[in-house]
């Protein structure tokens, strides 16, 4: 039983085949790392799952009811329970940490309901708890634009958690983080994967090794190998792709 | 080419003197059956003929005068003048029996000899018997005159006669015209004669078979004269009939179908006195007001008469009292409408002729429709090239630099005013335009570069702020133009050789100035493509467009490229201003009148691609012309619908006709 089932998707940009007959699936409580060289199609894959890019062919099915994600737009996909953290931290820089987290907090999303929505005490507690969890407990009133690069990364992870998604797509979470922060991130992701599906896209092999999970290797838009890190790193083709040429 | 021309000229020189000779010497066929037919050979001069037939001329009768007129007509020099004068009652008979031409003189008449034109002194009125031919005779004379003119040795006179006949030819002219065809030596005039004969036959002919043959002989000729001859045949009048419709029925009508409703049917009955008129609201009101008695009409208080039903009741009461004439009730109207039949009747009684005319007109309309489409396409093309000229500079700045320049319209105006100023210095229009074009480019190039340096450079990547800042410049410039040049339109005159239009046939034509603008647009397309694909500047511009930081690291100075690009776009706007100023009024609002269309062109065409701008301009030009064609009375509505279409179009192609694809386009 898988939470997300991607089968046979392909997408072409101006004749360049970014994704080529790619299939992928992940269960409801699983941690998965996706690795691959530049241009392997990692980000495009995430774009397709989150609705930013439409594939030319293939299917993307979601959840127990096998909802066709290709029929939904980005916002609907996000509401269905897929959260995404971008490669470059993207937070709302003109707004405070608390506002950023409050916006991400799981609640009704329609304009009317949001217009009359006012935070209760419980919501404030939840925001404070989240901020503490990502190490921004004392920064709630600061504008997020003033935060350091790493703090923005953490804020974005906090926003991802606030959404309470069932599937987390995390693009290079460790970029720009200190060693200690990386370990903290690893722990957080491993902990999350006990109840959520987590897909981590990462370049850094050490980081992936610490995650200790199944690894999918992408190359030229399709899956080259899949299995434990040791398994894939011993794969001849993978070695060729990473080290060859 | 040159040899052909020489041969043509030689042929003309040879033909010219030959023509009158041929006309004189060609023996006319002997025909004495019809009184108007020419006599084969003059017995002698005009004087002899006149003397021979003196009695008949002095007291002409319609039955017998025919051969005499024919004889005079064939009598040689002086005959046409004599016939003309005779018909105009300017011929008199002297006491000695000699016929003289009369002209008013103080002491009676000035006389002259009909044959020689020699003056014969004056004579008091009492000594002259004026000839007064009746209208029948005058008609015969006129026909003979026509025949004479149609056979005149001078081709110009023959043509003039044909033109006169084309304007007001009648049934009596058909026979002389037919007779004059055979003897015609000039092929072109002969064709014209044959054509006119056909037209006259269609209009006035008496033999249906011949008329139908004439109609069919034209095929689907496009001439306005043919349509002018055919259309009256198909004119209809609408009539109501108590029984079955009679006459040449174009269509029988049923009330309530099409635009012929019961109301119109009844109006027709009233117009033909077949039914009494209905009571209008105004008449009802007047009748009621005329019969107010003690605040009541027909027993109903005046205060209640704001209700139409009460008014009807009051009128009915007056009617029963016999105070007002009875008016048709609704039931009577309905019954009368049902009891009659209605039809459109042709004025022409012969059904075979109207059928042939309808078929011919249908064929003509199809051809005319196709020609109109072609004409419309030409119009659309020229409008499209104006939009293209206005938009190309915008496309460069918007497409290449992502800068929206709201002052682009003012740059166009600036170009037009430059042209105006140059014309105040140089009076020769051709030279002044040739000077104005590069000067306008230079002026607006400078203005563009200045604007880029001072304002736009600081706002890169802030498109909305650029839009607003350039708008500020736009209002300032527009007001400065107003202050300097005033609010009234300034003339920018095109050279004489651009006046007039190229006529392809009666339907399709295009003015030379529009051709010139089309050519100018093509030249700009060429120059732009040349700069972008063949020059170093174009290469650098493309590099900066695609990846500014990479281009910078390759040693290209993006600042300089942006400045030059912006200057180029602005300079083209200036040249477009001169071109647009040639046919539009040069006012301070010239540019802003074109700016929205220019934006639309760029947006519809797709950003960053010159072919897109071309496609957008063509699309918008054709659209505007097409909508104007569908609704010719209202150009404002055409623009409204065009903009609505564009808003709708953007739904389906948000990035324009020719859109950039791929990852780069999305971000």
């Amino acid at each position, binding site marked *: 039983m898988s939470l997300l089932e991607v089968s046979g998707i392909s997408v072409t940009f101006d004749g360049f085949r970014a994704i080529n007959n790619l299939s992928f699936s992940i269960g409801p409580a699983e941690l998965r790392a996706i690795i691959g060289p530049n241009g392997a199609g990692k980000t495009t894959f995430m774009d397709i799952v989150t609705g930013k890019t439409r594939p030319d062919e293939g299917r993307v099915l979601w959840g127990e009811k096998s909802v066709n994600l290709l029929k939904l737009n980005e916002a609907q996909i996000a509401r269905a329970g897929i959260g995404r953290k971008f490669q470059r931290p993207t937070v709302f*820089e003109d707004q405070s940490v608390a506002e950023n987290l409050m916006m991400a907090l799981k609640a009704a999303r329609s304009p009317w309901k949001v217009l009359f929505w006012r935070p209760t005490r419980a919501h404030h507690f939840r925001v404070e708890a989240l901020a503490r969890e990502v190490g921004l407990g004392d920064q709630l009133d600061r504008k997020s634009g003033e935060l350091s690069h790493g703090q923005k990364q953490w804020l974005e992870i906090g926003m991802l958690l606030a959404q309470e998604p069932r599937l987390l797509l995390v693009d290079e979470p460790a970029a720009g983080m200190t060693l200690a922060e990386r370990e903290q991130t690893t722990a957080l992701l491993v902990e999350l994967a006990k109840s959520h599906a987590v897909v981590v896209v990462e370049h850094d092999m050490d980081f992936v090794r610490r995650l200790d999970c199944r690894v999918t290797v992408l190359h030229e838009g399709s899956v080259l190998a899949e299995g434990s890190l040791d398994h894939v790193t011993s794969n001849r083709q993978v070695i060729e792709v990473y080290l060859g040429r | 080419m040159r040899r052909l021309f020489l041969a043509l000229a030689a042929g003309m020189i040879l033909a010219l003197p030959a023509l009158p000779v041929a006309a004189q010497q060609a023996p006319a066929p002997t025909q004495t059956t019809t009184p108007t037919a020419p006599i084969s050979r003059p017995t002698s001069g005009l004087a002899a003929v006149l003397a021979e037939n003196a009695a008949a001329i002095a007291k002409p009768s319609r039955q017998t005068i025919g051969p005499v007129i024919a004889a005079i007509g064939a009598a040689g020099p002086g005959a046409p003048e004599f016939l003309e004068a005779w018909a105009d009652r300017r011929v008199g008979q002297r006491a000695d029996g000699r016929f003289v031409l009369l002209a008013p003189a103080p002491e009676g008449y000035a006389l002259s000899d009909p044959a020689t034109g020699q003056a014969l002194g004056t004579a008091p009125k009492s000594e002259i018997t004026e000839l007064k031919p009746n209208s029948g005779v005058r008609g015969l004379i006129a026909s003979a005159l026509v025949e004479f003119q149609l056979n005149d040795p001078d081709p110009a006179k023959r043509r003039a006669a044909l033109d006169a006949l084309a304007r007001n030819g009648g049934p009596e002219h058909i026979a002389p015209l037919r007779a004059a065809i055979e003897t015609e030596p000039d092929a072109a005039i002969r064709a014209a004669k044959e054509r006119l004969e056909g037209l006259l036959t269609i209009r006035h002919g008496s033999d249906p078979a011949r008329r139908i043959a004439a109609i069919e002989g034209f095929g689907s000729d496009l001439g306005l004269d043919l349509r002018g001859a055919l259309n009256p045949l198909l004119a209809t009048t609408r009539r109501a009939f108590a029984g079955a419709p009679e006459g040449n029925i174009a269509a029988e009508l049923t009330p309530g179908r099409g635009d012929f409703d019961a109301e119109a049917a009844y109006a027709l009955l009233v117009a033909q006195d077949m039914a009494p008129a209905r009571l209008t609201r105004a008449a009802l009101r007047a009748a009621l007001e005329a019969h107010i008695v003690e605040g009541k009409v027909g027993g109903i208080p005046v205060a209640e008469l704001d209700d139409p039903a009460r008014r009807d009741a009051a009128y009915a009461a007056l009617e029963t009292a016999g105070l007002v004439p009875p008016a048709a009730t609704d039931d009577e109207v309905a019954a009368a409408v049902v009891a009659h039949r209605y039809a459109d009747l042709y004025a022409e009684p012969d059904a075979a002729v109207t059928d042939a005319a309808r078929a011919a007109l249908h064929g003509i309309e199809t051809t005319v429709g196709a020609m109109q489409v072609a004409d419309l396409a030409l119009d659309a093309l020229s409008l499209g090239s104006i939009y293209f000229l206005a938009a190309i500079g915008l496309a460069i700045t918007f497409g290449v630099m992502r800068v929206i320049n709201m002052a682009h319209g003012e740059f166009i105006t600036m170009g037009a005013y430059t042209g105006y100023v140059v014309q105040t210095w140089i009076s020769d229009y051709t030279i002044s335009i040739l000077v104005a074009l590069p000067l306008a480019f230079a002026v607006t190039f400078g203005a563009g570069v200045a604007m880029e340096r001072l304002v736009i450079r600081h706002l890169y990547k802030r498109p909305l702020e650029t839009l607003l800042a350039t708008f500020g410049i736009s209002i*300032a410039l527009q007001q400065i133009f107003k202050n300097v040049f005033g609010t009234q339109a300034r003339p920018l005159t095109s050279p004489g050789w651009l006046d007039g239009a190229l006529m392809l046939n009666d339907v399709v034509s295009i003015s030379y100035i529009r051709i010139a603008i089309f050519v100018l647009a093509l030249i700009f397309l060429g120059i732009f493509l040349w700069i972008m694909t063949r020059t170093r500047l174009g290469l650098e511009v493309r590099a900066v467009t695609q990846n500014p930081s990479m281009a910078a690291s390759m040693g290209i100075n993006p600042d300089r490229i942006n400045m030059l690009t912006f200057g180029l776009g602005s300079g083209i706007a200036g040249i477009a201003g001169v071109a647009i100023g040639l046919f539009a009024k040069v006012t301070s609002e010239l540019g802003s009148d074109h700016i929205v269309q220019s934006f639309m062109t760029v947006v519809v065409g797709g950003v960053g691609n010159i072919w897109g701008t071309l496609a957008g301009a063509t699309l918008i030009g054709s659209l505007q012309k097409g909508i104007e064609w569908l609704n010719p009375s209202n150009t404002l509505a055409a623009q409204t619908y065009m903009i609505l279409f564009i808003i709708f179009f953007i739904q389906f192609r948000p990035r324009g006709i020719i859109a950039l694809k791929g990852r780069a386009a999305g971000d």
Partner: protein
Amino acid sequence: MKPGFLAKNPSVLSFLLVLAIFTLAVTLMSEAYGAGLVSTSMVKTLGKTLTLCLIAIAMDLIWGYTGILSLGHFAFFGLGGYMVGMWLMYARTREIVVSSAAGALPMTPQELQDAIATQIFGVVGTSELPAVWAFAGSLPAQLALVVLVPGVLAFVFGWFAFKSRVTGVYLSILTQAMTLALSLYLFQNDSGLRGNNGLSGLQNIPGLDGVGQDALSVWFLWASALALGLGYLLAHFVVSGKFGSVIRGIRDDEARVRFLGYSVENYKLFVFTLTAIIAAIAGALYYPQAGIINPAEIAPIASIYLAVWVAIGGRGRLYGAVIGAAFVSLVSTWFTGGRAPDLPLGFYTIKWVDWWSVLLGLSFVLVTLFAPKGIAGIADWLQGLRPPRRGGAPLGPGDGSLQEKEALE
């Protein structure tokens, strides 16, 4: 609204206070109710200015907060004016027709309507009442249309524009095109709204013949002040909560908002329609004070001027929009009214009637370049607030996102 809302938002309270004091002061100085220090035409100008402040608030909501540079809000303003103008003109003409009726019989409804139609439409050569005037006889219906017509137009246009994800300058040009289409349509004689003659005589309120213009002008001032106050409260309510967070998020980075699960299109549509309705209400209050409306008022340039006011006042702050609209429109009236003294330069005398537009245009460029915060920036300067140091980077990738200099640390 929760109790204590005003207490929690002192800026709203002080705004309402200033507005109330202003209204009271003008009333006490008016010819009708006070010392007569302020002429009736000045009261009208001030009343009109208040309605312009209201539409500036709408513009600030859509541009300053949501990042959509709409160049079409004056179209909604004009439509609101037309809707209320139809009733004013129809009812007023009916009064005139009834009072000057000739003939012995009372008029039937049809005759009355024909007479009114002849009066109103004689100028465009028709005597038929167009279908769009079906409700012109009823004030409540026409007031409902003030909200409905611009609201529906904005909704339909926005639905098309936002669903196809037209953004940035494209959207601005599209709104400009919509405005142009509307004004061209209204310029036609057969649009049913009297073509370029527009609607006139709107300053005469039917049924209030006994009330002079001096009193009416003060009443309209009160109505405009009330509308502005309520509009300010509404706008503040909209931008203060999570909704405000979301729309500011859309302004700075709409893709990110989408990935949080908010359907950006619906939010834009909501704000676009809401602000169109606010603009229409402002227009419905403006034109009875102006007395005349014609299609030229709807031309795209008016909407661009609206953006100028908001930019000069300071976008992204509600009070900035109000200050900008009031300042620019009043100064503009002063300069173009011929009251500003000429400036002799020796070789040339600057007549401000001719040169005011140049000054406005150039100062607008300067504000955009050097003071994006506009007049409201002075308030920040007084409070010692500074923009963040971001090396020139704006606060988000969106076209409408705040500039570095517009933001606060």
